[in-house]
């Protein structure tokens, strides 16, 4: 006899003993007089939460003694005040040490749905449950044949209760569905280590129709399992030991509820209006506590500004009169023809001309927005990091315009390859600090800026330049950059009479220009989105900044957010490399990580060589010299065109975001293409105005 058979026959025997004292008719009468059942269905599925069914359990055959629980009513009240959506009360007495007396005490204590958990196999037990005020009963598929299961589910529903129908396998789920189950409990433990097996859960729960509520029924202990199950599609979770044996029962339930709310909030749509802190599994705030006050303040001030028409008015006026927005959408027929020759289709290519903004790149959009927030916060000092120098120049520019004190951190290697931008920042009155720690590139500049911020957070704003870092930066920077895509969509319609593009291409370092041009199209499935990372000398070379290709980035926390990170087997950040300083970053904005995971954006890379070829192609076909960063998007356009061809497009309409202009890159390009002699190139290196060393 299996354990289950034993438990069922024991429970039925005990029920018979009770029936000898209180007959079925009497129990029916009690049921008729019991308070009406609560509609548990409404409690078990919510758009903004993963309802927690918290269990009162003293022992189990597999784990033995768990908790004494002298006062089940008090425990139930703790669960309820922690935010439990329902209570499960064991009434089996032989192995689980529960009783109907426990159940009655719990029923009198709480006003949320109450599940009777027992080994129910007879009508008497169902009637008895209702008589004691149950709103739900447990039915175990493995313990019942099809007829009995169907009959007991029907009876449960007739009495206004809901059956939680427990299953372990695909076959049992199919039986439960045929029997009319509305709430199905699925047990998906990995038998090897008893961890939650999300893939198994997905496989089991995956093809259930939407009107069935999926309860994750076993192995839920803490926030990790709640998150895993919720991401695998569970509507609700049932938790026993994880709450019953906790030191603080209320806190334990509250943590589970918070974890569920977080998962739901992290997956809201429409994508274009999704808000942080979480983008799917990514994002958050992995920062010292010392920064939380500043981040909270920034979030609050930004929310207020967002709701204030005067803020938008001021920003828009500056965008038009100072930055020169809207930036044009330029058709590039000769460049398109070159793609056509190479790929064998005839695309129409439109360039979004962020290179024509004041300061020569998209970075000013965000710098301006944040600088206006600095004024609203009453802070007087701005710090920023820069890689290629574009964000540093944009920040120095807006600080000059608004009279803010400005310090820019720049890795020493970047400062050398972007000497002219260092000089520009100084010209604009900014202090430039060359960072000689770590790998001396963008990430090290960010580290140093974070250290400065932690120290001077009272009067200082860190004007982060991309959609990375801790919340609210990824959402906020996106909001300041999304004007790129919004303009492009409108210009495509108004200037060219084209309803929508077939594809949008952008380069992805941290990812702000890409998010900016893509945001307006995220919820339009007709538009294919392509992001191109810095391939350096190719992913196999180890000399690159590709985070998304197989075998490159791994899930981790870096500089404030959870995302993909280039790191070694120890979790130490890897040295990255790209010919373009602006894409040379070990991590990537959390929204991109999410868009990759859900398959909305296709990510690929362009090598140094491919990018420089595209740099030359655009210069010579259209008379537009792009930044080397943007050249990765242009190189990507060839790859995107090839992909579109494969998908059957013959005349695709493509938008490529030219995020910046290439004047700053002429020394690099001159060397690359041999327009400068070695002597001239060396002279340019030497005359570079370098920042002062950091101590």
């Amino acid at each position, binding site marked *: 006899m*299996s*354990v*289950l058979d034993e*438990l069922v026959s024991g429970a039925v025997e005990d029920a018979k003993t009770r029936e000898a004292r209180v007959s079925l008719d009497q129990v029916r009468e009690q049921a008729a007089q019991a308070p009406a059942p609560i509609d548990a269905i409404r409690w078990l599925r919510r758009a903004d939460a993963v309802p927690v069914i918290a269990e009162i359990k003293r022992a189990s*055959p*597999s*784990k033995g003694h*768990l908790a004494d629980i002298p006062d089940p009513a008090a425990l139930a009240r703790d669960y309820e005040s922690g935010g439990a959506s329902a209570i499960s009360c064991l009434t089996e007495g032989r192995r689980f040490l529960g009783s109907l007396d426990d159940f009655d005490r719990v029923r009198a204590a709480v006003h949320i749905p109450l599940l009777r*958990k027992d080994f129910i196999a007879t009508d008497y037990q169902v009637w008895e449950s209702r008589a004691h005020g149950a709103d739900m009963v*447990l039915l*175990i598929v493995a*313990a019942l044949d099809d007829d009995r299961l169907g009959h007991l589910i029907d009876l449960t529903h007739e009495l206004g209760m809901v059956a939680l129908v427990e299953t*372990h*396998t695909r076959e049992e789920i199919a039986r439960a569905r045929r029997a009319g189950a509305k709430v199905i409990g699925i*047990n998906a*433990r990995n*038998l090897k*280590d*008893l*961890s939650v097996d999300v893939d198994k859960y997905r496989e089991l729960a995956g093809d259930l129709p939407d009107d069935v509520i999926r309860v994750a029924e*076993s*192995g839920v*202990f*803490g*926030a*990790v399992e709640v998150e895993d199950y919720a991401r695998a599609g569970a509507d609700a979770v049932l938790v026993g030991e994880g709450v019953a*044996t*906790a*030191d603080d029962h209320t*806190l334990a339930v509250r*943590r589970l509820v918070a*974890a569920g709310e977080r998962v739901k909030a992290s997956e809201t749509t429409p994508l274009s209006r999704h808000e942080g802190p979480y983008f799917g599994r990514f994002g*958050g*705030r*992995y*920062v*010292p*506590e*010392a920064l*939380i*006050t500043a981040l909270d303040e920034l979030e609050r001030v930004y929310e207020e500004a967002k709701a204030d028409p005067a803020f938008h008015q001021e920003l828009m006026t500056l965008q038009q009169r100072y930055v020169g927005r809207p930036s044009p959408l330029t058709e590039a027929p000769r460049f398109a023809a070159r793609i056509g020759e190479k790929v064998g289709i005839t695309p129409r290519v439109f360039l979004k001309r962020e290179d024509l903004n004041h300061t020569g790149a998209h970075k000013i959009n965000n710098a301006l927005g944040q600088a206006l927030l600095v004024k609203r916060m009453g802070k007087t000092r701005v710090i920023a990091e820069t890689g290629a120098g574009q964000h540093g120049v944009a920040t120095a520019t807006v600080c000059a315009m608004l009279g803010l004190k400005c310090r820019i951190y720049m890795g020493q290697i970047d400062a050398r390859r972007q000497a002219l931008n260092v000089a520009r920042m100084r010209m604009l009155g900014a202090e430039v600090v060359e960072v000689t*720690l*770590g790998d001396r590139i963008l990430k*090290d500049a960010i*580290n140093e800026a974070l*250290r400065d911020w*932690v*120290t*001077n*957070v*009272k009067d200082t704003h860190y004007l982060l330049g991309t959609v990375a870092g801790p919340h609210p930066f990824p959402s906020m920077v996106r909001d300041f950059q999304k004007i790129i895509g919004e303009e492009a969509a409108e210009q495509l319609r108004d200037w060219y009479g084209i309803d929508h593009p077939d594809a949008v291409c952008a380069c992805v370092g941290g990812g702000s220009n890409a998010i900016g041009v893509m945001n307006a199209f995220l919820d339009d499935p007709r538009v294919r989105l392509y992001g191109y990372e810095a391939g350096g000398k190719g992913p196999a070379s180890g000399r690159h900044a590709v985070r998304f290709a197989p075998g490159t980035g*791994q899930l981790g*926390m*870096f500089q404030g957010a959870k995302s993909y990170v280039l*790191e070694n087997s*120890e*979790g*130490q*950040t890897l040295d990255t490399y790209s010919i373009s300083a602006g894409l040379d970053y070990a991590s990537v904005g959390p929204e991109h990580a999410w868009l990759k995971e859900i398959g909305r954006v296709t990510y690929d890379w362009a090598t140094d060589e491919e990018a420089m070829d595209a740099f030359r192609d655009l210069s010579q076909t259209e008379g537009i010299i792009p930044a080397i960063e943007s050249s990765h998007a242009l190189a990507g356009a060839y790859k995107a065109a090839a992909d579109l061809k494969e998908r059957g497009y013959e005349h695709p309409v493509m938008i490529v975001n030219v995020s910046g202009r290439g004047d700053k890159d002429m020394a690099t390009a001159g060397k690359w293409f041999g327009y400068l002699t070695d002597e001239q190139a060396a002279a340019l290196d030497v005359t570079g105005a370098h920042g002062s060393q950091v*101590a």
Partner: protein
Amino acid sequence: MNTNEHTETPVQPLGFNHRDSPCETMFRRLDAEGRPAFIGYLPYGFPDPDASLDALHTMVGHGVDAVEIGLPYSDPVMDGPVIQAASQIALGAGERIAGVFRAVEAVAEAGGVPLVMSYWNLVFHYGVERFARDFANAGGAGLITPDLIPDEAGEWIEASDRHGLDRVFLVSPDSADDRLATVARDSRGFVYAAARMGVTGERSTLSASPEQLVARTRQAGARRVCVGIGVSTAEQAAKVGAYADGVIVGSALVHTLLADDGRSPRDTAEGLRLLAAKSDELAAGVRAARSR
């Protein structure tokens, strides 16, 4: 209900470990002695893996009650130049995370309370549950997480609950009361109060703010509050120890093992001698804290 015979197996995941907080046990012992705890920091693997074990022994032998064994990280945003340099030296000398458990054992053997301080990505990458298990098996007491706030710590709270490890989160002088309450509620062992805004490093003077912060953190519900960041002399240790449950010293100890250029390790024997002297000096300060 784990009733299906196919899913039954004798192996069960760990439940809550209800052992006493190792740090609380230490504080009670020191309460009886009428003094605060002296908590010293040193990165594991600095100046090299073996020498760092000697250094940890030295610290415990010279009055350090609990050791924060640092895990060197490539991007330590909460650390100033001294600890940055030590971390880089350790990484260059071949530090590996798996080795830190030897250091934990070494501290425990020497009679100290072994804590680990780590930037979160390292623990996450190693595997949170795996780290908690290996750390607890080595005799570890708890983990200090400078860039992990309680709001993001779900997995760690769960793992530490299962393994009975202390969780030390930080507060800083500008933390609002609701943040102090959150940190106090989710911490176990003690709360780490940063004496000032900023990164680790020695300071000649400490402001009055840490005392207020300790008082506010206690009001917010923390039972034990220790103060670190900037404490580097016996006098400062005595001053801080008068109101805090523990005095945390990092850079001043690490400094003794660094050469004068601040970028390379000092001769090991010489370094250990200086480390012992500095530990003695600070321990004297800590021991005098409540007798003045």
